């Protein structure tokens, strides 16, 4: 029972970590909360569902399609809603309002065009179990854990070793100095949103398989924001650790206490953590600089 709970928790935590990393990546560069991220995840799940069920493509191709589709949409979102603000050096308040508008716009666009129906992935994918040390573990959970960690490791490798990755890390410390050193910031921000979108596509696919595909599924990113705060806003290792901690704790609470108070618990955790440890576990921004 405990092993099963832990595996489920790690699987959910892995998905939270994916979303939190995507969110933190944008936050570390542009310093604002990208509330549109949830709707990109939702659209990624729809793309994956359509490729798999309507176009009849194999699962691997659908996942790849969902990743690419979400990456493209995330890039498009930046181009249309944020790039003008960025060039104007607008306050982060305006970015957040714009992001929120995008989130509501995309969600209601889906309502108006596709409808509010819930779409479920076929049971062959979602319901298989394997027995492991006497505990029955969902294949999907194992896949979610493996794929989340592979994706996060690939991102980590990319950020550590590629030219673009190094530029992204430099820009997260100081965008202006980075620009003075000859980095094309517009292209860099494009890269950041493409990477964040790719993670959104992957997490959207897993969320869709685990729960269902529906217009408001993007609001689960609330949990990713909480995970990012637990780890420290803008810190990528923090987002991973925060996501895992939140996923495991939530699953433990819903298994051993009550599933009703699960969301209340996550939020209370956030408030308590802000009181005792405002920077989060790996926080790098607390003091504002003049």
């Amino acid at each position: 029972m405990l092993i099963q709970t832990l595996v489920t928790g790690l699987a959910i935590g892995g998905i939270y970590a994916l979303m939190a990393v995507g969110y933190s990546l944008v936050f570390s560069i542009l310093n604002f909360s990208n509330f549109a991220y949830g709707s990109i995840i939702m659209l990624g799940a729809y793309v994956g569902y359509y490729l798999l069920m309507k176009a009849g493509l194999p699962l691997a191709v659908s996942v790849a399609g969902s990743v690419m589709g979400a990456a493209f949409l995330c890039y498009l979102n930046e181009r249309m809603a944020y790039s003008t603000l960025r060039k104007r050096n607008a306050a982060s308040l305006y970015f957040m309002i714009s992001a929120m508008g995008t989130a509501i716009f995309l969600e209601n666009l889906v309502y108006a065009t596709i409808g509010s129906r819930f779409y479920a992935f076929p049971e062959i994918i979602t319901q298989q179990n394997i027995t492991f040390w006497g505990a029955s573990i969902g294949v999907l959970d194992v896949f979610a854990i493996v794929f989340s960690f592979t994706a996060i490791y690939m991102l980590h490798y990319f950020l550590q070793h590629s030219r673009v990755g190094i530029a992204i890390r430099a820009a997260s410390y100081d965008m202006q100095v980075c620009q003075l050193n000859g980095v094309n910031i517009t292209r860099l921000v494009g890269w950041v949103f493409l990477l964040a979108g790719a993670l959104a596509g992957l997490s959207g696919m897993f969320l869709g398989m685990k729960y269902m595909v529906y217009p408001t599924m993007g609001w689960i990113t609330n949990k990713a924001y909480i995970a990012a705060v637990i780890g420290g806003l803008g810190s990528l290792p923090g987002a991973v650790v925060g996501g895992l901690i939140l996923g495991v704790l939530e699953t433990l609470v819903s298994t051993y206490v009550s599933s009703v108070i699960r969301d209340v618990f996550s939020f209370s955790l956030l408030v308590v953590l802000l009181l005792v440890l405002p920077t989060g576990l790996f926080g790098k921004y607390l003091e504002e600089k003049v």
Partner: protein
Amino acid sequence: MRIQTKTDLASLACGLTLYALLEGLILADIIPPYWQLNVIRVCIYIILATSLNLINGITGQFSIGHAGFMAIGAYMSAIMTVKLGLPFLVAILTGGLAAALLGFLIGLPTLRLSGDYLAIATLGLGEIIRITILNISYVGGASGFMGIPKYTNFTWAFLLMLFTLFFIKNFVNSTHGRACIAIRENEIAAEAMGVNTTKYKVLAFTIGAAFAGVAGALFSHNFYMAHPTSFTFMQSFDILTMVVLGGLGSMTGSIVGVIALTGISAYMADYPEIRMIIYALLLIVLMLFRPQGLFGSKEISLRIFSRLTGGERRGAAQGN
């Protein structure tokens, strides 16, 4: 007499005249019932929008959980009138106080940090309050709180709206309000000048929450019931759109925003998705082309008239 008092009295007179005019039209049934409801809605949303404007526009924080405070006010006041049989005024006050207390408790840890923490915390808060209410059977749970008497009428809504407007206007013009504006303009500079930034941020947040609670009380006593689905994030988003459309920091802007968007939603009542798409596009386009909203942080005031007639130029200058 001080210029401030003079303009206050003039605005009050205008407000009361408007009240008499509208109440007369309602009593004479010249305004059809559907639009009477919308007039009350406008009053309630003006309370909500100006109180959110105090937090988001005047103090420059970013709260997106206003519907949560509204829900607290709505349910607390309904408990007072339905379960305890207390008068409406007591219920409104309790609703406001309960929301203020919650605002204080949430604001204290989150407002010490940068704006994003508050945004995330209030976003979560709205959902948590809704989920908590869903699971309390004492207040009806998922089926909603039924049988709330309809105490809210145009008089209550308008007079409370007038009170809110005067309270917030005078708050903004006071020492405390100036401190809040200083925080918005530059928090570090304000702190360096000796402004206790956390104190004023929490103060503005608590006042904003209190008025949201008052509006919630009016809201639940207007529709015979309170339902958790009335207080989702979409409700907060509606209020935010009104404030941003009018201009963050402008009270008169918020009023214009409320009237414009309530008008749109009255006509679009049958197409909720299209309405939200319009709202969302409005926000995105505003951010791209006119981020300061319709009015910026300016106010329309009665002084415009004296300026037009050229009379009070000298007096207005002295007042500043």
